[in-house]
């Protein structure tokens, strides 16, 4: 059988500066090649911590458990190493990088990912095609990364990077937050267009709206650092209709769960 793109095994993680605060209390998850998984949950459930921990953010430490990428244990690998192996994180709040253009960043990132320089012509062709799919102008690529970008532009710029870097695993952390309907549709259609057939995608979201455009194979509900329920796309519809409370109630988790 093929190895899953991502496998989390009993993952427990805390804040590096405050090790007494554990946020993830044992997560098990498997994403097969080509699958789209959505992790949903109320505020404070640990969704973004999960995204950051898989990407190797130094803000969090793994207390227990493992992260496997295509069968390889990457739990101890630094963020840059994980990225070169094929992990991509689309940030919830993409950071401005003053003085560094998107083209500049993409060239450096591609060089790191591929291990060699991409021929200039090939790069340019690929960049133009990817920009087009995201309805982005070439001028955007010449601007400084995330500087003075609108909310929609920032998220499109993240997906642009995903499209160029072609990761094995793309983690989209609240890619829908702060977007109006049109921007959300553009970004979501971009993800659909740029997704490769073997790519695993992990969508982290509070709301189900993005899932109206990107259909997940599996939906997981994260509450207080644990996956409390998993299902197919209909689980997201259930939350859309009724919110989180009925599920929390059913699981006896309602009290104190709405952080």
């Amino acid at each position, binding site marked *: 059988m093929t190895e899953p793109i991502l496998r989390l095994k009993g993952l427990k993680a805390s804040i590096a500066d405050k090790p007494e605060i554990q946020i993830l209390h044992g997560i098990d998850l498997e994403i097969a090649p080509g699958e789209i998984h959505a992790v949903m949950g109320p505020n404070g459930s640990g969704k973004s911590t999960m995204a950051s921990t898989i*990407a*190797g*953010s*130094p*803000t969090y430490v793994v207390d227990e458990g493992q992260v496997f990428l295509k069968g390889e244990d990457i739990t101890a690998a*630094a*963020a*840059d190493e994980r*990225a*070169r192996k094929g992990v*991509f*994180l689309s*940030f919830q709040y*993409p*950071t*401005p*990088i*003053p*003085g*560094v253009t998107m083209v*500049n*960043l993409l060239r*450096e*990132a591609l060089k*790191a*990912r591929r291990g060699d320089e991409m021929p200039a012509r090939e790069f340019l062709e690929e960049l133009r095609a990817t920009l087009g799919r995201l309805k982005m102008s070439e001028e955007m690529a010449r601007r*400084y990364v995330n500087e003075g970008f609108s909310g929609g532009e920032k998220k499109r710029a993240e997906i642009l*990077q995903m499209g160029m*870097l072609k990761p094995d695993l793309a983690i989209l952390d609240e890619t829908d937050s702060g977007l109006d309907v049109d921007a959300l549709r553009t970004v979501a259609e971009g993800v659909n267009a740029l997704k490769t057939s073997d790519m695993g995608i992990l969508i982290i979201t509070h709301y189900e709206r993005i899932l109206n455009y990107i259909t997940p194979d599996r939906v997981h509900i994260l509450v207080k650092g644990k996956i409390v329920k998993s299902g197919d796309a209909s689980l997201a519809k259930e939350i859309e209709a009724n919110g989180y409370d009925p599920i929390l109630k059913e699981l006896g988790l309602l009290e104190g769960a709405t952080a």
Partner: protein
Amino acid sequence: MADATLSPAYGEAAVVAASQGRGEPGWLTEQRAEASRAFAALPMPTTMLRPWKYTDVSKLVIDGYAPASAVPSVIGAAPQGGFAGPLAEAAADATLGPIVEAHLGSLVPATEGKFVAANAAQWAGGIFVYVPRGQAFAEAVSVTIDVPDGEANQGAVFPRMLVVAEAASEVTVQMRSLSGAAADLLASQVVEVFAGADSHVNLVFDVDWGLATRDFSTIRAKTERGADVRIATLAIGGAVVKQFVEGILEGEGSQARIRGVALGDGDQHFDFVTLQDHVGPKTQSDVQIKTALAGASRSIYYGVTRVEETGLGAAAEQENRNLLLSRHAKADSDPVLEILTNDVIRCGHGATVGPVDQEAFFYLQSRGLDRRQAMKLLVAGFFNSVLADVGDEAFREEVATEVEEKLAVAHI
């Protein structure tokens, strides 16, 4: 160095003899004689003086360093009636001589300090750039000073440049300073810039000395009505680089833009002192100094924005940013405002000292860049706002390469 043998070249008689030996005009010989007397009389600056607070030169004996020859190369085709070449040649020329005589040493008098006095007495291989009224140099004048390892391993060089830009003229000068890695070289430089009405003068200094060279420079520009002066320094090399960069804004509506960038490693020491002196009305100035410091390098910035009582309607910006790339690097920053009138348009100043933004750093790591690649990109981006419009394309590429090469091995 206190008990080092003093070079006989600094005495007045020797200075006069050397000047006469070079066949210099009488006024210049007299100017040098006066400078040598000032040099003998003036004390070394002490750390009690604010601009020298963090750069202690009490153990440095200037005349312990024998003057060494450093003849710069100059490339630049002058427009009709203009000149870009040796200062000594211009001083002896029938047409240019009076222009040199009228300006040389008048903006930076030899009597104002030990280092400039030494320069005025000793300079050799100076550069004169002259642009007549309404004329422009088609391309940047390129000046290179290169002191290779060898005879000058313990010597002093005194680079000197005089720029006279007449009304509505335009010139760019790019100066590059190089020395051997082992050269215990002392460089004391003086640059005087006279920017005529509505002239555009653009000076770029690429300080790429070897790591045992100490550089003390005074760069001063005076502007007439509507003149626009831009001075940029990129300090990569040198053990000590201390620069005074000053804009004396006399003419109404004239402006000065001062840019400085330093990339330090090891125990390199950079010290920038800037002055934006708003004498005339509606004058504008903008200072931006950025340093990135690896290893145990350090930077000092002390800058004064002064708006005189006569400087009505002035606008000034002053900014100093320091990026610490290592735990052992250090930066001191002190921007000062001296506003003597109520009538100013704006007068801003800011200073920061700190490590690279950790969020930006993680962002780049998450894109696969290792620590050094990420640092390189962040530093290049940090410098970009200063370097993006400095010099010509070839110069910017050269600078980018220098930064890249240095960061490839820097202690970060």
